[in-house]
């Protein structure tokens, strides 16, 4: 107790003297780096399993943390990071807010908006605006409709399902029962998984849509054992991105089999249970800031703002084209707490990254796995590799 008082006193004293110390250690010029954050998350509609709601400020809090991280480094270099936030509730207001940010001269913008809104944002963006997608997992944004100034820090559906596929393959759990929900996002996830299963030689022995309607007069947990009747399978794969019925699948399958996909064991960009490679410190900082656990959207937004910070530290410039050049140069690597240096794929702007496979209270494994080889980077065994993508945003 006496210690903490003493420490507080001491801190006050040293912080006073520190201003002088910093002045001598800091370059004379000052640089302002202005970053925008744009969020629009469409209403998910009513879901069956809404016991644990998703945080509404996912993405925003990650942005704020990275801004604070950048500013701590920035104070030693005379660099000051500023954030303009726009949280909107419709596509129209999101597009209007984007224009507002641009008109205010902000050309480094983090977005957590759906893929279709993002396409419209990209169309209306001026030439030098650099966008960081921290929300849309659509494969098409990485394989066909890419844009030179659009980077992705959130993993694509394909990266996530490939992580799952590699894990299934190395466990030799190859016969799979796939259940797909009704939303376009569910279908996109399932489509990505079907590609994964071809890629890694897995076998989808049952492929059933979940159409649970009132005719059944049963609860989901009663319905699921019958729904999952079938010849033998090794695991059940669920594609239920908004968490409608998926939480009822584990332990309710006809055969005693593990459940994975969007529920059960899930591939993520980030999760509370990731703690190696210094991640414990990032988790602590995040919890202190937000009072909750860091999730994938928070991580993607954090990574985007930290990528900007890493570039600005190196080049001492705040303009978007110079930052873009640096991010695609061989000098850039992001320390992302995943045990590997993270870099951007030069063909489509996707951030290469390991994918943790988690269950709610533990880390199971982290892809890529040993034995899945690649001539350039093992992380490129996840998602659409260069020959599989039509994008060439740096040529």
């Amino acid at each position, binding site marked *: 107790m006496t*210690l903490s008082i003493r420490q507080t006193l001491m*801190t006050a004293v040293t912080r006073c003297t520190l201003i002088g110390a910093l002045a*001598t250690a800091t370059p004379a010029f000052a640089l302002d780096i202005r970053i925008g954050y744009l969020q629009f998350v469409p209403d998910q509609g009513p879901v069956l399993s809404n016991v644990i709601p998703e945080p509404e400020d996912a993405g925003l809090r990650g942005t704020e943390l990275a801004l604070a991280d950048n500013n701590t480094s920035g104070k*030693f270099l005379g660099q000051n990071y500023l954030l303009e936030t726009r949280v909107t509730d419709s596509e129209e207001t999101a597009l209007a807010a984007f224009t507002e940010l641009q008109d205010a001269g902000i050309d480094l913008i983090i977005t957590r908006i759906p893929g279709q809104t993002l396409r419209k944002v990209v169309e209306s963006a001026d030439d030098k605006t650099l966008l960081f997608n921290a929300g849309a997992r659509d494969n098409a944004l990485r394989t066909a409709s890419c844009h030179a100034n659009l980077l992705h820090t959130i993993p694509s559906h394909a990266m996530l399902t490939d992580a799952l596929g590699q894990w299934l393959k190395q466990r030799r759990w190859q016969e799979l029962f796939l259940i797909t929900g009704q939303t376009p996002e569910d279908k996109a996830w399932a489509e990505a998984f079907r590609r994964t299963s071809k890629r890694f030689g897995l076998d989808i022995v049952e492929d059933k849509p979940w159409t649970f309607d009132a005719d059944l007069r049963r609860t989901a947990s009663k319905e699921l054992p019958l729904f999952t009747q079938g010849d033998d399978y090794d695991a059940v794969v669920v594609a239920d991105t908004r968490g409608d019925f998926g939480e009822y699948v584990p332990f309710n399958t006809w055969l005693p089999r593990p459940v994975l996909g969007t529920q059960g064991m899930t591939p993520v960009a980030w999760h509370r249970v990731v703690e190696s490679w210094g991640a414990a*410190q990032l988790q602590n900082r995040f919890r202190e800031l937000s009072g909750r656990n860091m999730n994938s959207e928070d991580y993607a937004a954090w990574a985007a703002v930290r990528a900007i910070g890493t570039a600005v530290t190196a080049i001492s410039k705040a303009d978007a084209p110079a930052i873009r050049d640096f991010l695609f140069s061989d000098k850039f690597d992001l*320390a992302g707490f995943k045990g590997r*240096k993270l870099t951007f794929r030069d063909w489509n702007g996707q951030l290469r990254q390991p994918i943790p496979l988690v269950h709610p209270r533990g880390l199971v494994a982290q892809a890529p796995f040993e034995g899945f080889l690649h001539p350039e980077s093992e992380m490129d065994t996840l998602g659409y590799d260069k020959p599989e993508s039509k994008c060439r945003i740096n040529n």
Partner: protein
Amino acid sequence: MRTLFKQTALAAMIGLSTPALASLAYVSNEKDNTLSIIDTETQEVVETIDVGQRPRGILLSKDYTKLYICASDDDTVQVFDLATRKIVDTLPSGEDPEQFSLHPNNKHLYIANEDDAIVTVVDVETKEVLAQIDVGIEPEGMAVSPDGKWAVNTSETTSMLHWINTETFEIEKNIVVGQRPRHVEFSKDSKIAWASAEIGGTVHIIDVDNLEQVHEMSFKVPGVSPDRVQPVGIELTSDGKYAFVALGPSNHVAVVDAQSYEVLDYLLVGSRVWQLDLDKDEKHLYTTNGVSGDVSVIDVEDLKVIKSIKVGRYPWGVVIDPTS
């Protein structure tokens, strides 16, 4: 049988009553909350001792009577008495101490507080907190130059070396290095500082007189993907011949010519090698291998790994008492 038992018991008793007979290595086991004590003659673990939660950085007092232990999750530095092998005291450390370094005056302990972006300076005799210095995000590596002039802190997320004047406790210079700097090691004459950058994959050589980088090294371990080559701990031989660099999940230690900065060899050790220390006559180098839970012993003359010693879970730091 009885004679054998007697001899063993006698040996054990001698071992207990005069623990300073053989040269001893101390290893902190991060996930076991223990300290392993290795006899460097027999190269075997002679005792395992319970310490505070998540022990990471460890160092010896300049008179080699005490071992200081960063008990990170207890937010304290524990003082371990080498003669009695007991925790005899704790020091105020600030939150989440990870690495630290003791000034040659044997009094001022510089502690990196990883969660608070602060370096805390504690007087180990009065237990007074002398200063808390704002540094970058995730301060990690901590080193005081042998001449006592500089304390250097590495901040992992800010990717800087912060040069703290040990007279004023003020930062005088910040040097940007590769991503995630982890460790700083000074040459014996305090003229050169070696700093490792884990994610950058580099080691930066700093000329201390001018506080400028004079060289940057990178590593290529045959058959290992470059992003797994992650330099952490550095150890220099006192004759200025070699630098040993622990390369993390590449599971290799690089042997570097300390004059030309040329990599001479890569030695395969256990999984995720982080810290290393030379024994008293610098004949053997001990490395902590976190994932495989063991310590590798390298013969310095032959540059060969000669033994691995099983210790606790996730061994983090290793120091060898040269006087014992």
